[in-house]
């Protein structure tokens, strides 16, 4: 498997916890990158990516990714594989649950990237989510506020899935 870039905000709390867990479970080579300090040069060298994209406010990208989007838009991501995880709150933000995962997936796909790591909607209850693709999420959605006890199991399962889907 190619080297995987795991990109998340180093200043974050929950996203960083998940990143630590993924790193722990990952067998292959993995490089950690700070989403707050991202440049095209740091971003581009990889084939496989795991991105942490939590949803901020009422369905927005987090600051780190939002500010990188203008740079991202100029890139050709053909041939690259992206797996996205993101924290959301299905009770208090039921109308835009984990939207940021879907927003980022849309953009990456438009730029030629391929999204992997789809997960089932089973076990979640929400009104709307831009991360929803049919009966699946286009990534791993975690809910620290309401389903924290399921995080570990969901992460473990997802990492195993990525190991198969990444090349």
């Amino acid at each position, binding site marked *: 498997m190619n080297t995987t870039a795991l990109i998340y905000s180093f200043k974050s709390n929950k996203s960083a916890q998940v990143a630590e867990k993924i790193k722990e479970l990952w067998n292959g080579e993995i490089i950690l990158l700070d989403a707050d300090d991202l440049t095209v040069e740091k971003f581009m060298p990889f084939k496989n990516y795991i991105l942490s994209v939590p949803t901020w406010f009422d369905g*927005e990208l987090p600051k780190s990714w939002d500010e990188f989007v203008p740079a991202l838009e100029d890139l050709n991501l053909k041939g690259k594989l992206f797996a996205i995880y993101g924290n959301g709150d299905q009770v208090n933000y039921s109308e*835009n649950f984990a939207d940021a995962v879907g927003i980022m997936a849309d*953009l990456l796909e438009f730029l030629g990237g391929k999204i992997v790591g789809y997960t089932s909607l089973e076990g979640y209850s929400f009104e709307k989510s831009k991360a929803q693709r049919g009966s699946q999420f286009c990534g791993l959605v975690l809910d620290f506020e309401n389903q924290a006890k399921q995080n570990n199991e969901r992460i473990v399962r997802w990492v195993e899935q990525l190991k198969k889907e990444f090349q």
Partner: protein
Amino acid sequence: MKLRKDLKYGIKQTDKELLLNWYKLMRLGRTIDDRAPNYLKQSIGWSYHAPYAGHDGIQLAIGQVFEKQKDHLYPYYRDMLTVISAGMTAEEIILNGISKATDPSSGGRHMSNHFAKPEWNIHNVSSCTGNHAQHAVGTARAMKYYKGGGVVISSQGESSVSEGYVYEAINGSSSEQLPVIFVFQDNGYGISVPKKEQTANRKVADNFSGFKNLRIFYCNGKDVFDSMNVMYEAKQWVLENQKPAIVHANCVRIHSHSNSDRHELYRDQAELTYVAEYDPLAKYRRMLLRYERATEEELTAIDEEVKAIVKEAHKRALVAPDPDPKSIFDFVTPEPYVSTTYPTGLHSYNGTPLKLVEALNQTLRAEFRRNPDTFLWGQDVANKDKGGVFNVTKNMQKEFGRERVFNAPIAEDYIVGTANGMSRYSDTIRVVIEGAEFADYFWPAMEQLVDTSHDYWRSNGKFSPNITIRLASGGYIGGGLYHSQNIEGALITLPGIRIVYPSFADDAAGLLRTAIRSRGITLFLEPKALYNDPKAATPVPDDFEVPFGVARIRRPGTDLTVLTYGNTTHLCLDAAQQLEQQYQVSAEVIDLRSLMPLDYNTILQSVKKTGKVVIVHEDKVIGGVGGEIAAFIIENAFEYLDAPIMRVGSTFTPVGFNPILEKAILPDTEKIFNKMLELWKY
């Protein structure tokens, strides 16, 4: 998929000069926003300050798309950057903040942080949050009618959308298809109340998703480019389609609601850190540097320039003149139309008598023919041969068209609020509204009426709502609590409103003409029991005018004075006649006609002549107009009185529906006669 780089505005494609100008505006706004609390700490002023930090993107965008003197802008109390972005200077902002006489919004009369510049169409708005949404709709109605080519922008916080009058405004703009943009600046809180306790949808704009003709736009109000693109697109859409739009802008509130709020009492540190993390100004600065659209040196130079601008503005504002306490009586009510033909409000015309309802209808039509900038609306006022429940406006729509005479939804506040707004478009406009089907149903309009009553004073004379509010009033028709009551006693407490209440057809015509030709608000109360009563029919000169504040002696007398108006004028005349016939007592019956202003001179002259006064009105004795008149007489003519001032009016109860109850409650000829006799015998 549309990429950011393909949009009109973006960090890469926007011209550098414009980017730096935006940075300067944002830095200027934030510098004043951050300094504002210091004025209060130093006891200089600005006791009300609602910081906007966290709303920077959308406020910059509103101001940037606004074209002064073409568009109209209704900012709310948190819109400091909006008005700075629209062109107001640091000095003007501080003058408002510390309530100086030269404050362009109100000369120190209105609360601080209520920014306005009426000469640019940046309107002076209420502190009743969101109530200007109705004014915006009224202005948009005029914008469309006069083909002004602009848009009206109404800005408010998301929690104020809970107000019923905001629903009325958006509903009306949707049904009338008007060019107005409602901007909801959503920072998640109404003071300390989280938005989930205001409405079920997280984005309150979604509450309006079923409204026809209305398009809803969403944007990140913290982000300059998203806000700019969406406001630009919304404006273009509204201009092209001549329909309303909502822009829902997600913001954060970095500070407390205002300087009387302490957000640390209800927000934890994690939340405060979270919102501060997304400081829109810091983000914009980072983006300029990250994408090499500005250098650190360039931005620092702007920071320094802004510091100097604010320092200079501060110095100039501190030495600006304070309001003169002697000016408090300026701009309470605009000067009325002055009649040169009938300066005393009397005539000697002997033509065929007209009923009161005919006199009103003919006067309305004559005034609408004379002045093309006249408009009339209300509930039930125009449908084929029907013109109001009493047909006062019969055939007006046929003659003047649907754009000038039209039905309003059953929303009394909206009827008044849009009259206010339409007046703001041009001082030449004169609006006549039927405020409600019956005066008793007018109470839902109190919010707009009260606000409109002080607009002229609050704007330091810069805006006069020119509105005649017609209401079918009073009892003697067996209408009960919702069709037979009077409201003038309650409303006369509001400075800024004229109140007239005629008893005869000629005075009704003359007062209505004066009201329509005057600037300001006139509450025109019509005694509905007299619309078709032959007793109230009189000859009416075609051009008759009755000045405000001029009473009419309907029956001269020498033994006692009867002061009255409306329905009871006729009862008093009957009672006076009986008194003369049975006791040879000569009662002088004065029809006040105008309650605010009041004809003090005629009252005093009569009191000095007779020494005895009874005040009769249909409204309640307690809290009625008679109490004020009695106090005036006591203060100014006590030595002429030979008896206590007596009053006749309704009991301190609602008016009952059963005629037995109504009779027990309302004044009648017998009650008045007995009181006059008691007074004479005293």
